[in-house]
């Protein structure tokens, strides 16, 4: 916004509309609430900032005391007629002060404005803009040849490329339309061209018109044209075949790669049972032959391993087993030994003469030591072999369990019979004693009540409490019961 204080007023304004600070008609008239004096807003704000007093009567004044003046005052100053500030430049316009801004913005011909053409940064008076637009080098014009819109400043460059303008052939110096130049160069007799046999080795190059006239008749390669054609076609067919083969090789390589990966995964799955073909052939038969003969190796590998690797012994029959156990050990342990241990003990019994580690293990004193209940897997055989071994072991275990059950049954029956007998004899003994007691009681009753039984009273005195007769005492009556299978021990309590 322009400075209102610098405006020229056509008529001297009423002195009541003059700000006493800037001495010009009010701009944004502002009245003090306290003392009702009016100033331009900017002027009084600045004055209060310097000194908080009214500039006219020096009464205290704060920013809060400032308020817009009565609208009448504003209208009066806004309607004052002012000259255009560009009067010195030539604008004769006068208008109300409130309209001046619009005049400057849109209408005043003496305002400096930038050229409206793109890229032109020249500043000029608004009235000169039309004149300048005709000569501005940034204006858009039309090419008189092709009709394209081109910037005036780029017109020269455009002419040098425009297809509607003529150009000079650089070979034959002919003037030709630029749009036809390409076609001309393809046929211009002065253009330097290579021999058509350059690909086969001819190094000649020269103007086109000399080619057919002079060079071709004398070119050494011309006579070999037919050979080159055949040769060329053969090479091309070979290279095509080569490409096809390459593709096949690539595909096969892909398959091989895939197979390798599959193989790797199988190896991972098989784990320790995987043996490459080479390893297998190198060790064929070796463990099978040696292990049965060499018992120290057998011990080294472990009993079950040795058995697996060697010719498997037939599963022992229960009677065999019993014999071995009876011969070697006390009766309790075999029940709690795993079948493997039973096998072992049998083997060891037979191979004791061989000595070595096995003897220590098979010694009766060592029986109670924990043996490996389940043998480690033999990783030296094939997976199939291991499975067969495991199956055999299970068969052996089943047989052992069976024999154990039977043995248990027999032992139980034996025990039962013995207890039954003992029970019977005890029953007899108790019966005999009861009869004896009964007799004694009878005797006693007779002694107390009268002279009934004189037979036993001579030796036995009157006894208040019945006491069992010592066994050394002669029996006073004929034994009633049959003799028991065994006589109770002297201390036996009834």
């Amino acid at each position: 916004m322009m400075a209102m204080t610098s405006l020229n007023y056509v008529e001297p304004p009423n002195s009541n509309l003059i700000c006493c600070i800037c001495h010009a008609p009010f701009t944004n008239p502002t009245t003090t609430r306290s003392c009702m004096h009016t100033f331009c807003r900017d002027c009084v704000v600045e004055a209060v900032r310097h000194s908080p007093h009214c500039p006219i009567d020096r009464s205290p004044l704060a920013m809060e005391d400032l308020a817009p003046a009565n609208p009448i005052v504003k209208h009066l100053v806004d309607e004052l007629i002012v000259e255009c500030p560009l009067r010195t430049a030539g604008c004769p316009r006068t208008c109300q002060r409130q309209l001046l801004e619009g005049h400057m913005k849109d209408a005043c011909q003496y305002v400096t404005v930038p050229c409206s053409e793109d890229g032109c940064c020249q500043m000029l008076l608004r009235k000169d803009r039309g004149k300048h637009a005709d000569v501005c080098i940034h204006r858009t014009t039309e090419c008189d040849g092709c009709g394209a819109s081109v910037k005036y400043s780029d017109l020269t460059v455009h002419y040098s490329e425009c297809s509607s303008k003529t150009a000079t052939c650089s070979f034959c110096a002919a003037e030709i339309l630029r749009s036809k130049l390409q076609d001309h160069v393809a046929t211009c007799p002065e253009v330097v061209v290579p021999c058509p046999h350059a690909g086969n080795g001819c190094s000649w190059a020269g103007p086109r018109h000399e080619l057919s006239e002079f060079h071709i008749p004398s070119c050494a390669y011309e006579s070999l044209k037919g050979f080159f054609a055949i040769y060329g076609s053969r090479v091309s067919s070979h290279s095509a075949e080569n490409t096809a083969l390459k593709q096949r090789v690539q595909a096969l390589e892909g398959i091989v790669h895939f197979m390798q990966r599959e193989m790797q995964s199988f190896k991972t799955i098989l784990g320790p049972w995987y043996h490459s073909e080479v390893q297998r052939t190198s060790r064929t038969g070796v463990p099978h032959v040696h292990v049965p003969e060499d018992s120290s190796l057998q011990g080294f590998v472990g009993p079950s391993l040795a058995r697996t690797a060697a010719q498997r012994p037939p599963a022992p029959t229960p009677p065999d087993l019993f014999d071995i156990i009876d011969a070697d050990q006390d009766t309790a342990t075999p029940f709690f030994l795993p079948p493997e241990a039973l096998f072992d003990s049998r083997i060891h019994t037979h191979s004791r003469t061989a000595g070595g580690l096995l003897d220590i293990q098979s010694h009766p004193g060592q029986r109670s030591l924990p043996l490996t209940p389940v043998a480690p897997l033999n990783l030296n055989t094939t997976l199939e072999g291991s499975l067969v071994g495991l199956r055999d072991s299970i068969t052996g275990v089943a047989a052992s369990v069976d024999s154990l059950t039977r043995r248990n049954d027999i032992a139980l029956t034996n025990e039962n019979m013995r207890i039954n007998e003992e029970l019977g004899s005890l029953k007899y003994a108790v019966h005999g004693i009861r009869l004896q007691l009964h007799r004694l009681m009878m005797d006693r009753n007779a002694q107390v009540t009268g002279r009934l039984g004189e037979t036993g009273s001579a030796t036995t005195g009157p006894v208040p409490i019945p006491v069992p007769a010592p066994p050394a005492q002669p029996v006073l009556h004929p034994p009633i019961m049959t003799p028991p299978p065994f006589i109770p021990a002297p201390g036996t309590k009834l």
Partner: protein
Amino acid sequence: MALPKRIIKETERLVADPAPGITAAPHEDNLRYFDVTIQGPDGSPFQNGVFHLELFLPEEYPMSPPKVRFLTKIYHPNIDKLGRICLDILKDKWSPALQIRTVLLSIQALLSAPNPDDPLATDVAKHYKENEKDAQRVSREWTEKYASQ
């Protein structure tokens, strides 16, 4: 910096319509610097004297007061021997509503009515208080000696 419109207007008016007994003219090379003359008011000891002053409008004018100084020697209780003036409107009582013309009229009035109770030149003030007639005589002598045309 361009001269504010107000200073131009004041200058135009001072030249075109001067106050009685006062002239003020700006220097050509500095339009904020004025040569001022004030005639001694009639009926005062300074009657018939023409006193030269200098006046300078600072950058903040009219928010700050103009700086004014007597160039002519004067025997006055409110003006010291360097020409400095003890006048409230040139100091704390300044208002932007005042202007060059009112300042100069105030100075002229100060010549008519010395105020020894608010002195700047203490010896002169003392003289005025103790023996006003004699002091006025000295003032007249100084006026004749230094301020006569």
